[in-house]
């Protein structure tokens, strides 16, 4: 019973972490608080559904194609829409307000386009719903995939950021955007790459999540909010933090559903979140004293 709760909780948490990792990159590196983040998840989910439903392309193949397209889309979006804002703000706190307003607008545009294109229907399809036995607990193969992917992606990104030259540059930009330029780093390019990478991760999350979760054109906000909570709880810009707090929320939800009252699962996750913040105001892994 304990082990099955642990396993189910970790797997649920993995799917939460999966959709949050991209956002922490976008904010951490590009300094853009992207409120339209969830719309990219939903877009990817719809794209997967279309590819699978009408062309018969397996969501596994989609998982290889769609993030690549999303990366390009993210970079383009940054260059067209975000760069002028970054330039205008010139490193001041104004970028935060401006990016919130602009991506809030983007959220509406994308949502409106998806409503027109796909209608408001709840969309879901069956793929990899088969059970897989893990240590005596039966798990859906698609959820297991999401879990593996979140661990793999977060771990890979962590290693990339920690040990590669490129990662060093990214971290430098995240920690001290002002002085990074002084040491000859091309800030704009790095920010664009970070934003694109975040979008690609959002898309990977969307493809995977669509295999087990029902979605509709207006569900983006739900994902954005979940991701925000996880990102903030883990410490902004911290990939490992996002993974850990995603897993924690999943464990909390499953444990409460099992032993307390399924009606209090979401309340419990918010209590956990608020308590963590009051204990560590910069998130679990946040270190910078800046805002």
């Amino acid at each position, binding site marked *: 019973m304990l082990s099955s709760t642990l396993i189910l909780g970790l797997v649920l948490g993995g799917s939460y972490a999966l959709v949050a990792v991209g956002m922490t990159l976008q*904010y951490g590196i590009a300094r853009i*608080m992207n409120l339209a983040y969830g719309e990219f998840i939903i877009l990817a989910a719809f794209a997967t559904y279309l590819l699978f439903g009408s062309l018969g392309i397996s969501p596994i193949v989609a998982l290889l194609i769609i993030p690549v397209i999303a990366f390009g889309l993210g970079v383009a979006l940054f260059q067209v*829409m975000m760069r*002028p*804002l970054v330039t*205008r703000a010139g490193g001041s*706190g104004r970028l*935060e*307000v*401006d990016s*919130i*307003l*602009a991506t*809030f*607008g*983007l*959220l*509406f*545009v*994308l*949502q*409106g*386009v998806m*409503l*027109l294109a796909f209608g408001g229907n709840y969309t879901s399809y069956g793929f990899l719903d088969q059970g897989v036995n893990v240590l005596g607990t039966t798990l859906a193969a698609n959820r297991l995939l999401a879990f593996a992917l979140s661990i793999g992606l977060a771990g890979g990104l962590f290693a990339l950021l920690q040990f590669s030259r490129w990662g060093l540059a990214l971290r430098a930009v995240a920690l001290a955007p002002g002085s990074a330029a002084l040491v000859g780093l091309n800030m704009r390019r790095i920010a664009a790459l970070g934003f694109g990478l975040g979008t690609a991760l959002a898309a990977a999350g969307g493809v995977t999540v669509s295999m087990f979760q029902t979605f509709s054109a207006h569900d983006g*906000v739900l994902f954005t*909010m979940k991701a*925000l*909570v996880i990102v*903030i709880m883990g410490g*902004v810009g911290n990939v490992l933090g996002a993974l850990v707090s995603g897993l924690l929320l999943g464990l909390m939800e499953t444990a409460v559903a099992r032993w307390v*009252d399924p*009606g*209090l699962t*979401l*309340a419990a996750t*918010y*209590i956990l*979140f*608020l308590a963590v*913040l*009051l204990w560590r*105001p*910069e*998130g679990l892994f946040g270190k910078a004293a800046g*805002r």
Partner: protein
Amino acid sequence: MRQLLPFYALLGLAGLAPLWLGDYGAGLLLGMTSAAILATAWAMFSGPTRYVSLATVAFYGIGAYVVAALAESQPWPVVLLAAAGCGGLVALVVGLSTLRLAGIYFVIFSFGLAELIRQLLTWYEVNVTGTLGRYIFTEFQPRDLLWQLLVLLAVTLTLSVWIHRSRLGLALRVIGDDETVAAHAGINLARSKLTLFVISSVLISLTGAIQSPRWVYIEPSIVFNPTVSFTAVIMALLGGANRIWGPILGAVPLYLAFEFLSAHFPDHFSILLGLLFILVVFALPNGVLAALERLRLRKGAGV
């Protein structure tokens, strides 16, 4: 306070409007007034301190729920007092968090709090009262509610002007600029922030309370709709959150734009609204009021 006199006159005039505007006009004015109060009350705290709160809807919903719980058994003024009291009490607890959190962490914290309140209320209703929806049957016509909201708007603005000029307002602006400096200057951070947050939240709770009889039936998903929080922020930022008139100048045009777009382009509302936001960010970087001032300055220089 003299600068407010023409404004009071304008509000009085708006109060007469239902006599010849009909139901729709009164309803429109009602919604607009409510939006103006929410934006102004939000900016009262968040403008000077730069703490972006997404907990607006928590107080709005609390106000509505107090009405639903008490409207049938208590006289209306008591109901309103209770709504203000509940809102103020919760605000005191939430406000304490501002002592530890800042920036984006506070933004999401306040959002999480609003959701937590909604979840707990839902759980309580389901497990204790056994119903979720509550009915609000009152004798109020739209114009009665409009009059109450107009009075509340007048109160809100008066408070806003008063705070702006008082020591409290100055203290808050210093806090917004630099908390460390503020503390060194002998400003009691905790008391200043808490006082203002409570005042702002009480006003928001009252708005929810007064507006709720319009809906007859309420449930958490209706009154704790996070869109309310976001709209208040957007309206205030659009107008200019640091100026007394800014939030109103953001709320009125934006509200009318919402109405126009949803009336004329019901199927493309979201897209047009989104484009409008993006346009505003690029074209009016410092809010409507700043743009107006710049225009006036330029004209002045030209003459």
